[in-house]
């Protein structure tokens, strides 16, 4: 079974700071990581490889420094990494197009695994877009995946519906965070990853002249002004004050 896992390097949103004056997020200097749910996709790929054998390729579109992050995925158990270096102002159209071109260049594959969404922007576009470009079936929001020799089945969380879908290969699957617990690589695996190949391709070599169809022209701050009144002392007194305040706010009462 040849599996391709798409993984994105993102900023760690929980480490993000907001400018006190403009309320705009500060994007510089925030630690980078592989988007959490992409690691769930990787974990699922390992399980499938354990059962059927084959090869796992991790594919990332991103800046040159994403190479360090790809090593984490190789340490988890991927056999090979591919980094497509791309410009900053890339949109989903460009990312998906580059992924599709890279996948055509890789050649044979049975399954593409993605996270349901990346934790920075949480759009969830890449999986379905890519499946549309490659014209293969898409199984989204998988809560579990059963891969057999000639078909794959998954139970999916579609909000108010639970749907079980089956597809033949090749197929693209997006997984949820609930599907598994991604493994932490051992020291041996981390050291071993240094010897695994990471190929670097440029965006232009795959498809030249790509321009974004959608541009982020501004990032606006969101003000989260809260009163931050915290009662710390005697519990009974605190509760008395809280209830009075809530009544004054008009949120409780008859």
């Amino acid at each position: 079974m040849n599996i391709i896992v798409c993984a994105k390097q993102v900023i760690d949103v929980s480490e993000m700071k907001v400018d006190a004056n403009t309320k705009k997020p500060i994007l510089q200097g925030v630690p980078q990581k592989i988007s959490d749910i992409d690691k769930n996709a990787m974990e699922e790929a390992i399980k499938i490889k354990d059962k059927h054998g084959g090869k796992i390729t991790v594919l990332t579109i991103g800046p040159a420094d994403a190479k360090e992050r790809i090593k984490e995925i190789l340490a988890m158990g991927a056999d090979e990494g591919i980094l497509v270096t791309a410009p900053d102002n890339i949109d989903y159209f460009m990312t998906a197009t580059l992924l599709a071109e890279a996948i055509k260049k890789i050649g044979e594959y049975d399954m593409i695994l993605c996270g349901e969404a990346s934790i920075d922007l949480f759009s969830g576009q890449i999986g379905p877009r890519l499946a549309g470009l490659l014209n293969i079936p898409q199984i989204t929001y998988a809560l579990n995946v059963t891969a057999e020799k000639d078909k794959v089945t998954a139970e999916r969380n579609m909000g108010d519906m639970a749907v079980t879908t089956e597809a033949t290969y090749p197929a693209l699957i997006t997984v949820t965070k609930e599907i598994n617990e991604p493994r932490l690589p051992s020291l041996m695996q981390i050291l071993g990853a240094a010897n695994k190949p990471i190929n670097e391709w440029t965006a232009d070599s795959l498809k030249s002249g790509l321009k974004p169809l959608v541009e982020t022209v501004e990032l606006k701050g969101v003000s989260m002004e809260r009163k931050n009144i915290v009662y710390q002392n005697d519990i009974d007194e605190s509760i008395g004050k809280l209830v009075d305040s809530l009544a004054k706010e008009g949120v409780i009462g008859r």
Partner: protein
Amino acid sequence: MVLVYSDNKKITIEILSKASEIAKEQKKKVTAVIIGKPDENLAKEYISYGAEEVFIAETELESFKSEEYSDILASIVKETGTETILIGSNKNGKELSARLGGKLNAGCVVDSNNIYIKNNKLMAERVVYSGNAIAVEQFNSTPAIITVPSKAFDSLKKDDSRKGEITKKKIESEKSKSKILKAHEMKSEGTNVEDAEIIVSCGRGFKDKGDIKLVQELADILKGKTVGCSRPLAADLKWLSEEHWIGLSGHKVKPKLYIAAGISGQIQHIAGMRDSGIIVAINKDPEALIFRSADYGIVGDLYEVLPKLTDAVKAKMG
């Protein structure tokens, strides 16, 4: 043409109002699309809410599959020269839109609650970075696809005198290689956190499933009756169903009053409740992040605070 589609009637009606506004500026028509059985009553209803045309794509398809529905929509878009496509932002709608974007090489913005035209360009705003910022997205080409969550826009007033054309057409779609083996509605207890005015939420600070009655009792006294929870309680422990799950990957809520007990206040939880009116936090850790996102907080053991708070509210409300 501005095309509107959702498999959810309520969202379709809400989007029709925004679509009418955009269409007026672009001097185009608003067309609602129905995929499936020709339901003329539904078509008439869409017209009464502002659709100038309803396109019924008749198919034999039994159930929703993005592969097939995106194929149908792509044919309609090409045939009609549609420029703007607004789709309801439930999970079906999102995966459909993104696949359609891939097929048509069209730009797509999901989950937008602010759509407008500026300098002749279509703009869509959406919340990013777990609620830390709003991205202003500009479309540089057509067709443009935007998905719209429920309650983002108020529907127009129903007006049965509105006139519109109904077109019915059989549309063949490429057969998907996927098969739906089973589909059933998630078990519902009828909880609707998104519509709730008062929510009392619980998190990992609760030691046992049975202890959830502490939040339920407070919620009942507050006449809110609605219990919410953080992700671990619904996703990992399964003490509560999905309907209660609030946050980035759960429900987005905006009650008048949100009380969070035993919830640490990680950004992904805040993303789902930051638009609440008044936020109250109960946590035994004075350093807990939740206090930074709260109007009022009590530092204390929830097992002591909740029953006492319930009694105090009961006394206050008489």
